[in-house]
């Protein structure tokens, strides 16, 4: 009996230890990032161009580049993702086609991001002759975001009680009207949460934009869709691996990483907040 008791406490202790280690890593990680990053952080850092071969100055072009890449990608991916999810939840016929689409979505979701990068390079950059540009990168990121948005929207639409769609149909609404006026508005907060989470994910992606959009250094801001852009994640990588003044580049890399981290975490913070509010206010 005593042996079993001991075993019990030991077992629970080990399980708790694993959770503790996970927590501890996160805390060390965050402390390190904030500590190292905050030393270079200033308003000027975010709003000025890099100077002196990346060893001084700010990261403004990278902030702008990441903003445009992410925004364009989401603008492309969201309508496509929502419409696909509508098809899967509301039309869903023929069955073999639905299965095929679902397998395609799950495969895309599990495909490494570097492969999206190669695809973007082969198709957008080379085949369609869009070159290394904002638009090539945004389209590549859109494809990356697509499965996330589809899955989130599908779940959101399936969460809408059938009472609502029945009521709408019984009032003489067509299927399209029911989807557009009842299903999607009811599911909207959840769709939004999913979209925001995928914004956070693609804003931090590096591998897909390496060969499709990103440039190490650009003196000017992107002016058109066909311009190369700087981007925060690629900038961090470039600062760490290229150039010769690592003593002055590493702190800038930390600062850039902190900005990226704050951006991504506040974005997912918004998503968590919305989800929390939905759960609290839901009345059906």
């Amino acid at each position, binding site marked *: 009996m005593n042996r079993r008791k001991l075993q019990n406490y030991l077992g629970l202790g080990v399980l708790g230890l694993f*959770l503790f280690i*996970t927590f501890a890593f996160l805390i060390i990680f965050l402390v390190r990032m904030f500590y190292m990053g905050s030393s270079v952080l200033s308003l000027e850092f975010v709003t000025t161009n890099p100077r002196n071969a990346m060893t001084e100055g700010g990261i403004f072009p990278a902030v702008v580049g990441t903003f445009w890449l992410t925004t364009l990608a989401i603008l492309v991916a969201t309508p496509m993702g929502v419409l696909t999810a509508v098809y899967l939840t509301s039309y869903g016929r023929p069955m073999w086609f639905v299965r095929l689409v679902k397998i395609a979505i799950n495969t895309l979701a599990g495909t490494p991001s570097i492969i999206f990068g190669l695809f973007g390079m082969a198709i957008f950059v080379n085949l369609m002759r869009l070159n290394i540009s904002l638009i090539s990168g945004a389209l590549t990121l859109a494809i990356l975001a697509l499965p996330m948005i589809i899955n989130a929207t599908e779940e959101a639409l399936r969460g809408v009680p059938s009472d609502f769609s029945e009521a709408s149909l019984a009032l003489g609404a067509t299927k399209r009207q029911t989807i557009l006026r009842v299903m999607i508005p009811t599911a909207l907060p959840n769709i939004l949460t999913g979209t925001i989470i995928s914004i956070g994910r693609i804003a931090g992606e590096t591998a897909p934009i390496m060969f499709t959009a990103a440039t190490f250094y650009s003196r000017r801001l992107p002016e058109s869709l066909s311009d190369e852009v700087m981007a925060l994640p690629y900038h961090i990588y470039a600062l760490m691996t290229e150039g010769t003044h690592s003593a002055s580049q590493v702190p800038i890399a930390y600062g850039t990483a902190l900005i990226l981290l704050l951006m991504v975490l506040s974005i997912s913070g918004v998503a968590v907040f919305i989800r929390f509010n939905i759960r609290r206010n839901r009345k059906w």
Partner: protein
Amino acid sequence: MKSFKEKSFQSITYITSLFTIVILMGIIYSLFREGLPLFKTVSVKEFLFTQNWYPTHSEPEFGAWALIAGSFYVTLGALLIGVPLGLGSAIFVSEVASPKLKEIAKPVIELLAGIPSVVYGLFGMAFLAPLIRQWFNLNTGLNVFSASVILGVMIVPIIASMSEDALSNVPKSIREAALALGSTKVECIFRAVIPSAKSGIIGSILLGFGRAIGETMVVLMVAGGSAQIPKGIFSSVRPMTSTIAAEMGETVMGDLHYQSLFALAMVLFIITFVTNLITELVFLKRSFR
């Protein structure tokens, strides 16, 4: 009778759905179109099973075995770290933790999932690697071990959230039955709950595997980068993903080196595709819901 608007709306949703299949086909097509021509010059056997990777020599050699092995070493290391941490956390959160701790732990683990991989890479390169070098008295801290630690932590949220789902789907009655028969909490967890959630847990580990083997930035920045079969956990390696990322910039479109990198991507895609398919069909049964 359906009106024109109804039909066109339905068609649009149908076409966007079709697009997901088109994209997948496009990915497969582009990988194979750019990668397959390599095998006119280099045999499949030589590519997969020899280990001299000298793509830029005057007489280039394309033996990718060391790169493939490098990917598996690092991924295995990541699983050795990620599985206990992820699964242990999931079990603790789902079975032991108080509701209050649960409420904190879940978003914290989700937070880990939101950190961009390049930031993990920076952390590994600028913080963890120097520490490892110091502690173990090495020439460099950029090696299998450091990469595995960072990758391991990266896959914790995947494994934790999916196996937590599997665990919480285990009916309460199974726990009650085990406890009523006089088992301790730990016996109940390991003999009753985990066996019932087995397929979901294995599925989560397989997804973690797929994520780790496909991860680029962390291994590119932290694994060291020498194309050799690692001799130990402190050797430097060059996994497939980091080879592609590091070398693509040096290639000329359409040359042998370019083709060989696409061929590597083919190998990587096939590995993740098969892993995914097995996970979805056998362990999670999601695609056919």
